[in-house]
């Protein structure tokens, strides 16, 4: 196609200028990808810290002191929901206990369940700092802050007073760190039998059925659909209980979009002004081509192709540059790792190309309007 050929030749004849425009686009797209990836990774990290090791949807009894019966019908609903992260259904019972070491005392929430099921939610095995992950009879796992505060180590025995006047001695099998000092200091894991005996509940009766989701933001939909299918229970989800966190995430996203938007506007203005200058520089050539019979549309396409070529080259360069920036960033002691979502990178590169194409509107219109006689008369 002639317009494409002419566009390429024009770009090549002003190689320095073309390279500068491509670099401008590249810097813009790299910034867009870098800022976007930082925000996405930061939010993912924040989300993981907050709810990555916690229930995202819980089925509870309507009255707090009542148990929830994990009936076959309920199991059918829960286990067959494709939105559930595999292996993350944990029926749990919990009871409060009082710890005392003679000088100090503290309340400790005992979460009881099967280690395998609890691992699905809390990842205790992965987060055991010392000792081992084990929740057999008479065994307990306590948090890092609790262990440090009361001088407890793996292998120690601790005495706990349970509700209803019961008491027991437990062997500390492991110390965990779930990333939350509040959780580490106030919660402990025991066998499911411990709270079951205290509460006097049947084998299918639990405090809550906790689950995690493949997509945490599906929690509202999941809770809503389960509520309608499971009468007589309450389904709570993390978004409803973390309104301030959600507001923070939304505000963070909004500021990220704003930064990315301004970057794109800056890129668009840069390309548009440079292409407009290029159009003025090539006015003579365009006029000559038109005098030879090149139609307005074909003349306009020259700058559309130029913009497309610059957009593709600049965006590709921008993606490479963003890889380099992220590689450099990974060398710094950041508290979280930045990962690049291939879809986000592809969308950013596509946006770069679209912005470049849109930026060619002004030179295309100017070129279309150009009358060859203006060039011929003015030399």
């Amino acid at each position, binding site marked *: 196609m002639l317009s494409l*050929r002419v566009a390429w030749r024009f770009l*090549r*004849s002003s190689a320095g200028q073309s390279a500068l425009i491509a670099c401008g686009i590249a810097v813009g797209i790299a910034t867009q990808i870098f800022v976007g990836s930082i925000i996405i990774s930061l939010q993912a990290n924040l989300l993981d810290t907050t709810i990555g090791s916690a229930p995202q949807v819980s089925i509870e009894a309507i009255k707090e002191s009542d148990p929830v019966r994990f009936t076959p019908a309920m199991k059918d609903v829960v286990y067959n929901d494709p939105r559930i992260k595999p292996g993350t259904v944990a029926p749990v019972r919990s009871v409060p206990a009082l710890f005392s070491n003679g000088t100090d005392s503290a309340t400790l929430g005992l979460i009881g369940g099967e280690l395998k099921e609890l691992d699905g939610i809390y990842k205790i095995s992965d987060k055991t700092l010392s000792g081992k992950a084990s929740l057999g009879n008479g065994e307990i796992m306590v948090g890092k802050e609790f262990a440090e505060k009361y001088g407890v180590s793996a292998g120690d025995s601790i005495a706990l007073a349970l509700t209803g006047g019961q008491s027991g001695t437990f062997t500390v099998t492991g110390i965990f760190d779930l990333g939350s000092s509040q959780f580490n200091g106030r919660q402990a894991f025991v066998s499911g039998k411990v709270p079951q005996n205290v509460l006097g509940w049947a084998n299918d009766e639990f405090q809550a059925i906790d689950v995690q989701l493949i997509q945490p933001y599906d929690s509202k939909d999941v809770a809503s659909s389960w509520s309608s299918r499971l009468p007589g229970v309450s389904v709570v989800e993390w978004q409803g209980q973390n309104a301030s966190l959600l507001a923070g995430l939304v505000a963070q996203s909004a500021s990220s979009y704003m930064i990315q938007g301004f970057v794109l506007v800056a890129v668009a203005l840069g390309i548009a002004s440079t292409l407009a200058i290029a159009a003025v520089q090539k006015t003579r050539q365009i006029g000559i081509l038109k005098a*030879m*019979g*090149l139609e307005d*549309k074909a003349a306009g396409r020259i700058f559309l192709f130029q913009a497309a070529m610059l957009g593709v080259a600049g965006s590709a360069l921008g993606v490479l540059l963003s890889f380099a920036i992220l590689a450099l960033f990974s060398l710094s002691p950041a508290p979280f790792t930045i990962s690049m979502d291939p879809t986000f990178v592809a969308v950013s590169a596509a946006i770069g190309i679209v912005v470049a194409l849109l930026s060619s509107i002004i030179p295309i219109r100017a070129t279309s309007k150009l009358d*060859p*006689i203006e060039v*011929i008369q003015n030399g």
Partner: protein
Amino acid sequence: MADAPETAPGGALDGVSASDDSGTCDFGMLLAAKNLAKTYGEGEAATQALRGVTFDLCNGEFASIIGQSGSGKSTLLNLLGLLDTPTAGTALYHGIDSATITKPARAIMRNEMIGFVFQFHYLLPEFSVYENVAMPALIAGKLPTEEIRSRAEETLGMLGLDGMSGKNANALSGGQKQRVAIARALMNRPAILLADEPTGNLDTTNTNLVYDLFREISRETHTAFLIVTHDRSIAERTDRILEITDGNLVADVRNSYLPEDR
């Protein structure tokens, strides 16, 4: 003489009615300028560059337009070349009224029927000699690449530019550049070549060379030539002289000078 050149172009001009106005031409009427007028500006600042010029030109005719600087001869040529639009009147090519066709159709007519040579060569510095010459055919987009290549080489050969096709247009001398511009104007085998002071920037040797070439091409291809000049000695080398004064066609004479080899 060989057969007359092709007449009305096809493509976007199909369906446009053409009147039969062949007059006394041996090979048919090519161009009819009818009361062409051009005014620049408006109100008190208005300047009448052309005041209603009417004449006919036959296929293959070798003619010139002469006049003083500012007389309106270049304006007339630009109107005939469909580069500019007249304030009044019209130009008909093979009976097709250029005032009634669309802008894209005018572009096609310029591309297929008309060749231009200006005082300045107007070559595209980004392209090679071959690409510059081939450009009108590339714009038309009708011929296969091989045919464009062979026709461009043939046209360059006709103008004594063999072996120059790979060079950059900027690497040529002034005379060579102007000959490349002529080759480009002839690339689509136009019915008419409009030349505006084509030797204004050339020395005497190159000037003579260019006019000898024009005469030879006219004889070999039956392309009509309309050459604008302010130099009466150049005009006298053509078969017909149209004289413009103050925007009016004041004389239209057949030249008595006939080269011996005509």
